Every structure is written in C-alpha cells, then in structure tokens.
C-alpha cells in the first residue's frame, strides 16, 4: 500500500479492489500504519481503486472508530461515482469528510 505521512496526517492510496476478500489485508496494513499515536488524521485516496462494495464501508468505519477514539478524523479523496453512491447510501458523509481532488 502506497502511503505518505505528513505531521499528524497519514494518507493511504488504495489500489485495485476493496471487497471482503481484500479487506483483511488492507485493514491490517492501515492499522499497522496507524499504530503511531501522533497520527490523528487518515486520508484515504481512492483514485486508483477499481471496485468497492459494502465491505469497504466496514473498513472505513472501523478506521473512523479507531481515529475518533483518539480525537482524530478520517477523510476520503477521489471517489468515483459508484463508490460515492455506496457512501451516500450509508450516510458516511455525516462523519467522514469528502475532499475534492
């Protein structure tokens, strides 16, 4: 997983597919990167993601809970239309910031 850290922000770039099968390893990698306590903001870049189903919502919400428990936040960037519909359906916009570009 490609990622950058800048001060308190971790940006991860998701690639390929995010379904139930892929969710476990993506979750594990993100959580390993989030072990650093100074990270309070997670930005998930979906620009190179080709597919996501509701398993992705579970992964994002799980990371949101982790960050929220240390007073942090989660944002997503470069969602395609399909993912945006799943996102909207789940009311994720209420708790997760959607960054433009």
């Amino acid at each position, binding site marked *: 997983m490609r990622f950058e850290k800048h001060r308190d922000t971790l940006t991860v770039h998701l690639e390929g*597919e995010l*379904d*139930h*099968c892929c*969710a476990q390893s993506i*979750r594990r990698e993100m959580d390993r990167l989030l072990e650093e306590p100074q990270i309070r903001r997670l930005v998930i870049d979906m620009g190179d993601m080709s*597919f996501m*189903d*509701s*398993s992705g*919502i*579970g*992964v994002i*919400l*799980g990371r949101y809970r982790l960050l929220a428990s240390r007073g942090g936040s989660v944002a997503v960037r470069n969602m395609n*239309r*399909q993912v945006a*519909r*799943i996102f909207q*359906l*789940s009311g994720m916009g209420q708790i997760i910031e959607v960054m433009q570009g």
Partner: protein
Amino acid sequence: MEQKNAMTLEFLSLPENEGFARVAVSAFAVQLNPTLETLTDIKTAVSEAVTNAIVHGYREETGIVKVEASYDHSGKLTVTVSDTGCGIPDIARAMTPFFTTQPEKERSGMGFAVMQTFMDDVQVTSQPGCGTNVTLVKTIAAE
C-alpha cells in the same frame, strides 16, 4: 418471457472466488450491451450476494455457492445466488440497512441496501438450516 441465454456457475465458498464470480456474471451481462455504469451496478450487487453466501451462509464451513444468470428477449437479466448454509431466520430484519450479525468482523450491514439500490428488484427466500436464495433482477434497455 422465454429465456434467450443462461449460464450456471458453482464454486466453493472461498473469499478468493468473490472477484471471479462478479467478473463472470458481468462478462455474461455484456452480451446485453449495458453501459459501463450498469455493468458496475451488476458487479457490485453480485459481489454483495456472493459475499453473503460465503461469510454468513457458510461462516467457518465450506460449501457450494451457485450462481445462475439468464436474460430474456426484453433484456431482463436475472441472477440467482444460492447457498445451502445456515439460512436467514428473519428476512425483513436482515434486509434492514445497518443490520448485521457480524459487527465484530466490521460488516457494515449495507449489503442488501446496496443490492436494492443497484438492481431493479431483489427477492430473498430462505429456510433456516437449509439455505438462502437471492434473486437480483435488472432490465438492460437496448440503446
């Protein structure tokens, strides 16, 4: 209406078959000349139903997931995903958005809501102890 084409897939309930199953159904649906967006809708709905058969129907066990797809002369695509797993005791409750029996596995409870949003119709029949059938329908209008 009379079937114009049909196919059936059977595979073991392993997570690595989720991608294969949704891609196979969308490759079949391509025969109806759908838009890319419609194809993604079908792929996503099939992914939800197949994942449910694997993670909820069979849980820790391994069984057979069956996917049947067909379309008629009007362009109506019907996909049925079946398992012979544990079944659903209360279907209405299971289909309620955010309801999940596996919150500890970070399931979101949004699978049926996604299927309902992306397809024209979703029908579920289930018998506790015998298994579940999920039928997804979408009409692909001729361009």
